[in-house]
């Protein structure tokens, strides 16, 4: 297991700065180890799929990366800023789409976005123009004065994505973002986030238990029973496991490592 090395230097910086670095992360609830020696890195422009079945430790990992609580072992840093020492600098560059819905249903789309902007200390004027821009990207600019309750599940998720991008983060975390969405909404979300990765050199960590969300182009981290079993492009994983599909490779990896 090694951190991936990105060869493209950032403009104006001598050394490459990793967007998200997770090193030796360990966490247990009572006797049960939920995460064990989890180490990986996500570079700017990386679209990384964190693949793992329910119970693999994804929820805990996300709780740690979004600073709900600290890890018992190991470090997390965002653009070189340690999470424990300088949380503000780390959180400011991070956008999150949570698994559970987090919009206020009785507020309008715009009110929800402005609330988020305020949490980041943004000026109202800037927040309004940013909200218009991001809503435009997800095709919901004309719905900004509608109550969230009136939107479909897929539209709500798109609003949450727009909200996560409002403060122009450089690292985007998504926890099971397609849960409960129809095929069309899923495809839109995936395509949009992939495009963001390419255009803005956004670092993305996309957690899912759905194998087909990791296309051939994606980098995949396989998390199983709290351990990282594999880390590489989907193509490599398939080749290494001598499988024909990622699903098959995933099956072999997890069976071989069952406790």
């Amino acid at each position, binding site marked *: 297991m090694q951190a991936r090395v990105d060869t493209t230097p950032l403009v104006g910086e001598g050394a490459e700065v990793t967007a998200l670095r997770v090193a030796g992360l360990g966490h247990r609830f009572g006797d049960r180890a939920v995460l064990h020696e989890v180490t990986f890195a996500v570079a700017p422009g990386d679209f990384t799929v964190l693949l793992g079945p329910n119970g693999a430790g994804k929820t805990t990992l996300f*709780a740690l990366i979004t600073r709900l609580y600290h890890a018992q072992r190991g470090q997390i840093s965002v653009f070189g800023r340690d999470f424990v020492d300088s949380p503000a600098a780390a959180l400011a560059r991070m956008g999150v789409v949570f698994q559970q819905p987090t919009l*206020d249903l009785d*507020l309008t789309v715009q009110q929800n976005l402005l609330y988020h902007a305020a949490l980041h200390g943004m000026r109202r004027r800037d927040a309004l123009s940013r909200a218009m821009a991001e809503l435009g990207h997800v095709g919901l600019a004309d719905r900004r004065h509608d109550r969230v309750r009136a939107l479909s599940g897929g539209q709500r998720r798109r609003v949450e994505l727009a909200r996560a991008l409002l403060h122009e983060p450089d690292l985007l975390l998504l926890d099971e973002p397609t849960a409960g969405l129809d095929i069309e909404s899923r495809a839109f979300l995936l395509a949009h986030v992939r495009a963001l990765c390419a255009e803005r050199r956004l670092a993305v960590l996309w957690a899912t238990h759905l194998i087909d969300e990791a296309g051939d182009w994606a980098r995949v981290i396989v998390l199983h029973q709290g351990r990282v079993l594999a880390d590489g492009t989907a193509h490599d994983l398939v080749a290494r496991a001598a499988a024909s599909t990622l699903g098959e490779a995933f099956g072999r990896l997890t069976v071989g490592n069952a406790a």
Partner: protein
Amino acid sequence: MTAVRYARCMGGIVRREGLRWVHQRGRFISALVRPLVWLAIFAAGFRFVLGVSIMPPYDTYVPYEVYIAPGLVAMIQLFNGMQSSLSMVYDREMGSMRTLLVSPLPRWFLLLSKLLAGVAVSVVQAYIFLGIAWFWEIEPPPLGYLAVLPALVMSGLMLGALGLVLSSVIRQLENFAGVMNFVIFPMFFASSALYPLWRVKESSLFLYWVCRLNPFTSATELIRFALYGRFDPLSAAVVCGCTLLFMAAAVIGYDPGRGFMARRVVAE
């Protein structure tokens, strides 16, 4: 520059709480109707049963409605404090708490802002109630309406902070009914909100001390005295002390390094 960001953040949190309050019609109406039901039905029924003698801050015999009005104001704040904080534990709000906590501003500041937002809403509710109560001949001196404002802020902070502590410590509450049974009812009934403590003392000394030590009694008395232009230093001290205590406990409860949150996630 940073101070501006803090101000924007707090403004946003207060604004959201206000918008939610106005938009959630059910919550809005029930918050107003609840104390009015007590005033119109309970107090009317009991006014002939319970006599209230002359006792500070009142200068004369007062009808029962007048006696319980400050307690009902405190009840509005108690419900509000529990609702705005504890709703995070058991419904979708857990998600919105997480949204709040990924803000880059310090966590204690976010919790304080959340608390102040709840207080702002509860103060407005209290004034609306006092406005309606005026028609029930609950007519404190005009200056009392002004003097009660700091008392409302103080008691609102204390009860909201209590809600925050509970939300960080309690792992699961089935629903709001659980909070009603184990927090709101005991605090409300074992206090001076519905009956003067000297009457409680006559029936049970033990119960008297429970009521006496209940911080909700202090909140009620602080509001009662302030409403009649008087200052009750003991109640004020208790309310301030409890606020600091609860707030410190809430900050610890939400500290990412301490693990109250971590422990709770096991249940998911």
